[in-house]
């Protein structure tokens, strides 16, 4: 029982990261049907911007700033990366919105390469150690060890996700996003500024990814320029699992994938974990491309 619970919790922690990143994929996909390969790299950029700002704030690794300072760094980083996400959309994707699907996919790949290698040139290829780390104490429930940091990570990501859900359900911008997802032309005719809403979508996606990036830096302690690639793939898997285009689905998919991987590692061994994840992805795409919560109809290109 204790092992079972412990693995469940291990899975929840990694699942929280998957969920946060999966949200960005699913939002962009829901609105302009673009698979934004570069999304995982925005997570990486978030981790690096946070690293730089935190290093400035905390000086030489000492934790002499209060929670307020760190909170500010979080917000500033997320806004900076959010703007970067908008910039990427403006420069690389908008000119191609009407072009064949293949062109925009290849562009997304190009953006991903560009972000990774700019980061490598700017921050270097070696692993960076985050200037702050979390307190290490925790507690035990029925034999499972859970640290406060883990609880914090899950709570923080849950808050961000609930915030997003509320934003989309309750605000006029959220309404516009949902409208564009349904019918771009009609929304435009109804007076929705489509380009502006698409830009906003990219902002929010990048904003959340940056949050996940900086959380990952604080929680795990190291970052490097390739960190976005594999987690981006996994988050995409999570988005598909939950039903791409579906916000709740992305959150659910992230947690489900995290938990499946944790049990997979335990029972099958670490070597096969990635095969399991990609295998699930392929099976879902083939047999239930709409995912767990996806809409019923599906289109073909």
């Amino acid at each position: 029982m204790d092992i079972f619970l412990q693995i469940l919790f291990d899975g929840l922690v990694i699942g929280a990261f998957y969920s946060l990143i999966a949200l960005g994929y699913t939002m962009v996909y829901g609105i302009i049907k673009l698979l934004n390969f570069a999304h995982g790299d925005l997570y990486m950029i978030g981790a690096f911007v946070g690293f730089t700002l935190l290093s400035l704030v905390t000086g030489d690794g000492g934790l002499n700033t209060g929670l307020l300072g760190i909170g500010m760094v979080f917000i500033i980083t997320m806004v900076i990366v959010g703007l970067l996400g908008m910039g990427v959309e403006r420069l690389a994707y908008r000119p191609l919105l009407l072009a064949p699907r293949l062109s925009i996919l290849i562009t997304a790949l190009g953006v991903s390469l560009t972000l990774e290698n700019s980061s490598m040139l700017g921050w270097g290829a070696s692993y960076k150690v985050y200037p702050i780390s979390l307190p290490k104490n925790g507690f035990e429930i029925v034999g499972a060890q859970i640290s406060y940091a883990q609880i914090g990570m899950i709570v923080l990501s849950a808050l961000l996700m609930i915030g997003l859900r509320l934003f989309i359900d309750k605000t006029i911008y959220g309404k516009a996003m949902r409208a564009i997802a349904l019918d771009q032309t009609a929304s435009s005719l109804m007076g929705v500024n489509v380009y502006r809403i698409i830009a906003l979508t990219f902002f929010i996606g990048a904003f959340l990814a940056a949050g996940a990036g900086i959380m990952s830096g604080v929680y795990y302690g190291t970052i490097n320029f390739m960190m976005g690639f594999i987690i981006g793939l996994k988050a995409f898997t999570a988005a598909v699992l939950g039903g791409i285009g579906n916000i709740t689905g992305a959150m659910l998919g992230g947690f489900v994938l995290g938990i499946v991987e944790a049990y997979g590692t335990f029972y099958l061994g670490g070597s096969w974990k990635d095969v399991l994840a990609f295998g699930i992805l392929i099976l879902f795409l083939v047999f239930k491309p709409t995912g767990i919560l996806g809409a019923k109809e599906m289109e073909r290109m």
Partner: protein
Amino acid sequence: MLLIKIVGGINLKKSFMFIIGFMLICSLFLSGCSDEGEKSSGSEISIGVILPISGNNATDGQDMLNAMKMAVDKVNADGGVLGKKLILKVADDACDPQTATTAANKLVSQEVTAVVGGYCSGATLPASGVFENAKIPIIVAAANSSELPAQGYENLFLINGLVPDQAQTGADYFNEKGAKKIAIIHDNSAYAKDMADFAKKAVEANGGEVIAFEAINPEEKDFGSLMTKLKSLNPDGTYFTGYYAAAGLMVKQFKEKSVPGLFMVGDGSYSPDVIKIAGTEYASDLLVTATPTANFIPGAEDFVKDYKSKYDTDPGPFSALSYNSVNLLVDALSRANSTDKDALRKALKETKGFKGIGQEIEFNDTNSLNSSNFHVMKVVDGDFTLEK
């Protein structure tokens, strides 16, 4: 007739493409010519260096190159060898097999007398084949997969202790400490997998039991569920054979999950970064099997001092070995009394009791070391100390 269609119609308007094509071909010729000029002239002996200068392993590659440059400068300051100056020709293998063969061929085309270097076993394996074909002796300073000597190349010399010896050192240490139930983890790189396999054999030969044999993906950060698994198996010792970035995270998560037993890593993780990543508190008592760095070698104080003053940083894990590789080559050149490759290979083969920093070099039948120099280091107060 078919061939005519291959390239298709040449459109005049697009003939600028041909210009690009011609430029490419011309650049081939030009480079071909410029390389001619680089060939070693009478007063110099050129030595090829094959190391990862770019990419993820560039840090160690740069350290090794620094040490080699130091050795060359010293030899040249003392008047060179055979009355000639040494010059280094550096080729980047980026730890990638395909890039490595191109780099090796580049060195061959520059007609180097011998080659030093070799960091990643995965890249050194195909590169050594190129040098074997060209009959150019190569002294491998760091790469130490057991598969390198298994190729049976007569021009390939290895001066780092081999993976089986290192695995044995680790297994023996566990045995000494009464640790019988051992978990082994690798990161799916050629070197780490090789070492994990040998560690398994060594542990079992010592009468121990391998209770888990696992792999991780070094690009990931969360080893939580793996640590949960380890904990449930209750190991006496855990041996991670991969590289430092994953090792640091693993040490941290190992301690956070309070997995019981000793934690040991291989020389791919012999780096202060492991301690930095894991944090001083969690890294304490971490064990490392490695060839000690120059810092721990008696008689290497001068080397450490020179290195620090020249490059403003401590020597890396393979700096001493790289330094030795150049000096061994110089020694062999002067014994061969010629830059002839056959004579040089013979001289290398006949090396007897060459004293480098921290090691005495003598080759066995497979051109690797007769005796290994692996020790167990332990982290105490955030610093490596010699344990055994």
